[in-house]
């Protein structure tokens, strides 16, 4: 999986610490703008996508940190919404933001990484005597989302109580020290309680880091992912932005009779780099490679039909027998015939189409659009087939169970795609094999197949028709190119369900016997397209008419 991480040079150290190890371990490229030569561009954070919202060269993903208060920071709120609408995959670490973002489309939680080797118990627990230390940390912004006003208020109180505030970072009321990242664990290890006053956060990391160091924490409800932390000893919650409740929780923390460092640390065990990496990989793999779950379908009875194509005398003669055999075994399932004139031999629906190519392929490959729209389940049978059992409805059963397409393989002698190579289709075959990467793939037989209507099969069938039009010859290579570029849930059957008696004994057949070549209205090979003058000349010769 090739991913390009989009991150500008000026991004914060925290974001770099989160994203760059991912890129390094997963072999991603990194740059300040998206690129086309990758499977996915990942904007970290979502703000990085703002200049590139029109980028459409690859699928895109973005990590959504926190959603700013629209009134306090209207510009960021607008970007959040614009990117959420634009991006293909939304990643976030807080369930509250996942719930909000998934109304825009595919959204996944990613577990943030905590360096639990760095943030660990102090060798010697802090002994602050009677003057306990309450810590806060982080960079304070003008939006007020860090809840610094709560600290300002708290500072007035603490002079009368037995604790002091220690702040790390920037912008906090009162004295603030700056700890280098290398020493950050020492800050936590010197505390008695860590207090998080934030109103809006994406994770936040400091309470997790403090807990990993075995330090009691006082944390707000409804902020970032903090509500997902288990209620362990020495973890105290309060209503966000409620000073009275925060004061209560802080007092409980300071007055607690004991300290269970292991349980605090244990509650952070899931925040590993492996989880951070794994949740990213899974989300990207699902975006790029998963398909929507198989839908629950309704019974095929009353919504199924069989589709024949017959042009020219031999084919129409075959179709008569084919339809008769169908009606004998499955009389309740309607038959549609596509031709230039009705057959009058049992077809329930006649679909008139011009005789456009000598093999009827241009009509056959338009089956999705030509078959009656009320048929949710469609079975195609060549005109030279014969039904010998009502078990043919197995095709519909498979589709009803959730498969989207059913095809049968060629007889074993011609099981491989390479066997279809002939002098008259060499160019098409070689192009097809090059596209597929090999000629050692199974050759599906286009004479008997079934599909269930949905967007994916519509796309496939129309692509099949487009691919057929390029060379205008046999339809198998065109099917391979279409199917291998746009796979659907295909169920592959063997020769029992399309028994070509030239190669397989009829006794082996479960339902459909195929009499190949008997519907053809020409002899020999047709050089080039089946809708060419040369092709029609071959038909004229076969019919015995003067050229």
């Amino acid at each position, binding site marked *: *999986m*090739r991913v390009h991480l989009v991150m500008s040079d000026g991004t914060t150290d925290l974001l770099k610490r989160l994203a760059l190890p991912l890129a390094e371990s*997963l072999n991603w490229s990194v740059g300040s703008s998206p690129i086309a030569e990758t499977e996915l561009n990942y904007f970290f954070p979502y703000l990085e996508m703002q200049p590139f919202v029109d980028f459409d060269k690859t699928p895109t993903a973005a990590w959504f940190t926190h959603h700013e208060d629209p009134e306090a920071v209207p510009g960021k709120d607008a970007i959040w919404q614009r990117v959420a609408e634009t991006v293909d995959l939304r990643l976030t670490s807080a369930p509250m933001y996942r719930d909000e973002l998934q109304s825009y489309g595919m959204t996944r939680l990613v577990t943030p990484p905590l360096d639990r080797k760095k943030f660990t118990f102090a060798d010697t627990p802090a002994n602050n005597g009677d003057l306990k230390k309450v810590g806060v940390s982080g960079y304070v912004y003008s939006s007020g989302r860090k809840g610094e006003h709560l600290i300002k208020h708290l500072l007035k109180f603490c002079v009368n109580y037995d604790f002091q505030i220690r702040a790390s970072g920037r912008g906090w009321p009162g004295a603030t020290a700056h700890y280098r990242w290398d020493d950050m664990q020492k800050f936590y290890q010197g505390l008695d309680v860590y207090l998080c006053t934030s109103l809006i956060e994406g994770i936040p990391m400091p309470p997790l880091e403090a807990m990993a160091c075995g330090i009691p924490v006082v944390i707000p409800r409804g902020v970032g992912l903090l509500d997902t932390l288990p209620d362990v000893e020495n973890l105290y919650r309060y209503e966000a932005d409620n000073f009275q409740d925060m004061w209560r929780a802080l007092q409980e923390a300071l007055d607690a009779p004991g300290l269970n460092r292991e349980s605090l640390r244990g509650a952070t065990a899931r925040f590993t780099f492996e989880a951070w990496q794994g949740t990213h990989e*899974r989300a990207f793999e699902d975006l790029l490679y998963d398909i929507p779950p198989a839908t629950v379908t309704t019974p095929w009875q009353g919504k199924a039909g069989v589709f024949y194509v017959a042009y020219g005398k031999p084919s129409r003669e075959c179709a008569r027998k084919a339809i008769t055999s169908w009606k004998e075994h499955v009389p309740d399932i309607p038959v549609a015939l596509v031709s230039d004139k009705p057959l009058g031999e049992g077809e329930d629906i006649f679909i008139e189409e011009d005789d456009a190519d000598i093999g009827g392929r241009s009509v056959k490959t338009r089956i999705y659009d030509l078959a009656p729209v009320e048929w949710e389940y469609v079975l195609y049978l060549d005109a030279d087939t014969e039904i010998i059992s009502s078990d043919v409805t197995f095709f519909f059963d498979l589709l009803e169970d959730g*498969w989207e397409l059913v095809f049968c*393989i060629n007889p074993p002698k011609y099981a491989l795609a390479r066997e279809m190579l002939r002098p008259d289709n*060499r160019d098409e075959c070689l192009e097809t094999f090059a596209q597929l990467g090999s000629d050692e793939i199974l050759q599906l037989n286009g004479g008997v197949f079934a599909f269930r209507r949905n967007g994916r099969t519509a796309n496939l069938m129309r692509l099949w028709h487009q691919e057929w039009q390029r060379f205008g010859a046999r339809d198998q290579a065109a099917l391979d190119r279409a199917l291998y570029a746009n796979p659907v849930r*295909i169920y592959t059957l*063997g020769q029992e369900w399309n028994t070509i008696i030239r190669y397989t004994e009829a006794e082996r057949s479960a339902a459909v016997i195929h009499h190949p070549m008997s519907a053809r209205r020409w002899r020999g090979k047709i050089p080039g397209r089946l809708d060419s003058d040369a092709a029609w000349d071959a038909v004229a010769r076969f019919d015995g008419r003067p050229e």
Partner: protein
Amino acid sequence: MKVGIRARTILYATDTDGGQRAYHPGEVLYVGKQSALRWLAEGRADALPPPPGVDDMGFYSGVVVRTAGVENTQAALAGAYPDLTIIEGEGLNFSKTLLLDGNLSPRPSIVGLGFKLLDTWQVAAPLFSYETLARDVGTEADRQQTAKMIRDLRVPFYDTRLIFMRRCSATLQLLEAWKEERQLDSDDRLAFLRAIYQVKPTLCAGPVGWVETGDV
């Protein structure tokens, strides 16, 4: 050992059924090394392109050997893919994983093809046989269990010794379902057939010959 070449002129060689046949320009044939070298030297055939390199497969392709015999696999693939990661296990350890029976020495060309197919398909696996059907294997109870799900056992099934899977929700679910189905003391192949029937991934059925050995 047979060597794969692509004919530039009409060449006559033994086909898979043992008879002589004409191979036309563009067709691929597998012949003995001496014949291949002679035709290549005479300009009557082209060498097949080498199997894709690991870079072509993507950074995350790897082989998980489900049985003992990881050394066999390493020996079989070391020449073509010296950097390919091959480990013992049973999960989808890579973005593109080949789940392999260690007793099988896979052809490098098939390994490359399988990983390429996973660019678009979720699963690629060869059929076990064109003749033997699901009704012909497993115990009676196993077959009944399978028929209950699939309805008709006159269907082919897959050779579970060589399965390529692209890791995603569907295939992780497939692997779990396969594991559960195996716990019923089932034939591994029928268990896989039931598992795919439950999950319904996009599965590229490959020819029986994918598990044959012998190319270069």
